[in-house]
């Protein structure tokens, strides 16, 4: 059994009148058990050359629906360093391809997913940003 942890720390010395220092760690386990997850896609990195969702080419598939059992943990980061070079992540398995997240340059997200949706990414500004991501959980 592997032991994998995710730790988030949010801090600021001047956003509030008191110092902000929030830190928490969760151990990534198989659903409803204390058994650690054992599978990962590894850390991926690709350049996004698509400027639209739907049938346009150059989109990046981050995760394919039901590839992992619930819960699958997605970490994703927009590697661009120029503000405004956004990456849109959309749900390709739902009618209308709704956009789920917009990552500006340098943004990252960490999402425990149900795992039943296909996520793809494009960059509406045509800036060809790089994206990094990893999925961890239980392959099926």
């Amino acid at each position, binding site marked *: 059994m*592997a*032991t*994998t*942890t*995710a*730790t*988030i*720390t*949010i*801090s*600021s010395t*001047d*956003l*509030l009148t008191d110092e*902000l220092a*929030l830190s*928490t760690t*969760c*151990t990534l*386990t198989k*659903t*409803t*058990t*204390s058994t*650690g*997850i*054992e*599978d*990962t896609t*590894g*850390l991926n990195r690709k350049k996004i050359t698509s400027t639209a969702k739907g049938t346009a080419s150059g989109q990046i598939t981050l995760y394919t629906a039901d590839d992992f059992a*619930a*819960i699958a943990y997605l*970490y994703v*980061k927009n590697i661009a360093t120029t*503000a*405004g070079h956004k990456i849109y992540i959309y*749900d390709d398995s*739902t009618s209308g391809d*709704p*956009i*789920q*997240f*917009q*990552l*500006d340059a*340098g*943004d*990252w*997200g*960490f*999402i*425990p*997913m*149900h795992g039943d*949706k296909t996520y793809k990414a494009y960059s509406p500004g045509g800036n060809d940003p790089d994206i990094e991501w*990893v999925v*961890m959980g239980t392959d099926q």
Partner: protein
Amino acid sequence: MATTATITLASADIAGDPVSVTKLMTLTKAGTTNDLDQSSGLNRVHLRSTTNKVLLGANAEGNDLAAKVYIINKSEDASLYVTVTINAQTVGKLYGGDFLFIPWSQTDTDADIEVAATNWTSSTGDIPVEYALFHEDTDFLTNA
């Protein structure tokens, strides 16, 4: 007025080589390097509803503005989970101890962040949930 969020993913044994990913993000206003300057603070609610409740209400002015959301299920019962939805789309499922951190794009006024204690019953006890919003719009208000 910099606020930073750092994530560390670590495992010594999930792969053949150790995994250690640490990334820091400075929370900035959309399309700029100016720091986000507003926050809801850390809130705590106790969920006892299997139907969706609005945790953070979307604001039409929020479209294309930056907002980051942190939500954690503080239940110590690993079987109790919280479903997180945006625009009626499930975006996350948090079992006890799990957290999420996402940029929140309020593409329209239906983009509320809603939560439900999906498998709650009167015998399971409440599910404590903590959350914080970091944003740039003066009109965002939490209504939980």
